[in-house]
């Protein structure tokens, strides 16, 4: 009897937890979509911020553009480093000890809070290298933030790639570089792109690292790597933090969320295609 009650309680517990998570997900998206949908229109997406204080009227085009540029720079910076580090760990590194050390280092990097990365970007890139608050400085800071995330996923993909093809390639005397560029990258391309897009989503949504390194309250669409940028998350923060316009804040949040959803969908579709092609 007691067992039965316990089992029932257990069942209720896990179902309730699952329901809570589902409810939270639906609530968050529903809330933003419901409120944001009213104030979103073509002018908002393609216009410049206007009004006094700035942002109370008009649109967010420079912020959308700024966020996209920041994400692209961060992704390029992080993926170049992540792919080469993964290649090194999986195919070059012979000693287990060095591999462990590299893994520990990457784990530590993943654990550094984004605000500390912002501090680092500020002192090294903005102050010492005199990049000023710029697209480049903020992009690199974001790149450092997502590097561990991409690296872990790509390394996993490399390890899962069938080693027979690679060994046959070596056996045929094909060179290292050819094997990597034509074979391994080809086999793992879905995972790599999926990891990068997912990480791009994280970079796009992060506000803490760019507050100190590049985001400003107003800037036109950036013309060079050294110009300051607007970014959606920071714009959203300013709109609420300074109490400028709640309506615009909802719309900005909706745009940010939609961009992230698109990115996540792309990543998920890629994983599905990969599964289908291997099955």
């Amino acid at each position: 009897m007691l067992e039965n009650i316990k089992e029932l309680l257990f069942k209720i517990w896990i179902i309730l937890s699952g329901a809570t998570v589902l409810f939270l997900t639906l609530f968050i998206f529903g809330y933003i979509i419901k409120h944001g949908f009213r104030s979103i229109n073509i002018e908002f997406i393609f216009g410049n911020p206007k009004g006094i204080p700035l942002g109370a009227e008009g649109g967010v085009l420079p912020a959308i553009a700024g966020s996209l540029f920041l994400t692209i720079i961060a992704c390029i910076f992080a993926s170049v480093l992540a792919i080469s580090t993964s290649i090194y760990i999986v195919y070059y590194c012979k000693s287990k000890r060095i591999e462990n050390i590299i893994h520990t280092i990457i784990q530590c990097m993943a654990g550094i809070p984004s605000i500390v990365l912002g501090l680092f970007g500020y002192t090294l890139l903005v102050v010492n290298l005199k990049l000023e608050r710029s697209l480049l400085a903020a992009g690199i800071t974001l790149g450092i933030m997502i590097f561990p995330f991409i690296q872990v996923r790509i390394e996993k993909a490399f390890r899962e790639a069938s080693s027979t093809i690679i060994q046959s390639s070596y056996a045929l005397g094909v060179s290292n570089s050819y094997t990597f560029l034509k074979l391994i990258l080809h086999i793992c391309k879905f995972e790599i792109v999926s990891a990068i897009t997912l990480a791009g989503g994280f970079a796009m949504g992060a506000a803490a690292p760019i507050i100190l390194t590049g985001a400003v309250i107003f800037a036109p669409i950036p013309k060079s790597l050294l110009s300051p940028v607007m970014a959606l998350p920071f714009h959203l923060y300013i709109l609420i933090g300074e109490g400028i316009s709640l309506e615009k804040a909802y719309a900005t949040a909706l745009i940010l969320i939609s961009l992230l959803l698109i990115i996540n969908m792309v990543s998920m579709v890629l994983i599905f295609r990969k599964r289908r092609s291997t099955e």
Partner: protein
Amino acid sequence: MYKLIDKIFDTVIKLLTLFSLLILVFIIIFIFKESIVFFKEVSILKFITGRKWNPLKSPTDLSILNIILGTLYVSFVAIIIALPIGVGTGLLLSIYTNGKWKVITRGIIDILAGIPSVVYGFIGLLVIVKFFEAVLDFPTGESVLAGGILLSVMILPYIISTCSETMDNIYKENLFSSEALGTSKIYMARKIVLPESKKGIIAAVILALGRAMGETMAVMMVMGNTPISPKLLKRAQTIPSLIALEMGMAEVGSLHYHALFASGLVLMIMLLIINIIFYYIKKGIHVR
């Protein structure tokens, strides 16, 4: 010709790897270098045990015990709320989903983890804080509790995915014997999967603790940011929000500027320790 390309390729890979590993060294060196200036003026002990933070009054009146306590307090509140829900959902997912559904639920949890913290903060401010003020009639809605509730939602995805990873493995390992004995799924979850995944749950808590302590924007928007001794229903401040708010005001090279780096260093050291513990616990699980 191929030999040359190969050689270049090898060197480039090695240099890039070295560079990416050096980033961590650079981060530590730079944060340390900027903090050491501050520690020459104010002793480390005074910095982390004093309770006053007043950059405007006297330049050496900077110590962050209240802020450290605030950071820890809000993170623990978040974990206490999130842990039962996260573990329950983890069990549910590892037992009742498979194949395609597993990928889809994973995707949903990834999306939940990918919602930017500013958006969480925005919703927290308009829903949780407003609820405290309007419905429950608290003097201030911006409080440690509001921050804790919001953070618990944000760390849920990390707890769920870490837990369900371990639980999946344990479930698969024992599925055959359990089916042979004719036990129900739910019985197996309660008697085998849950107790066996203790280590995984601990790892999840540690990961979530790290995430919660390093969180900036969301917490900053709902906690009121007052460097006083933290109480559950009062305002408080965390280290990340302190840095984000005051860095813009601090003049480069001033003691205030260096003090902010020093608090960043304190936060970083706490999180590095947490992460190394997480790494070894997780490694222990995989070896088993």
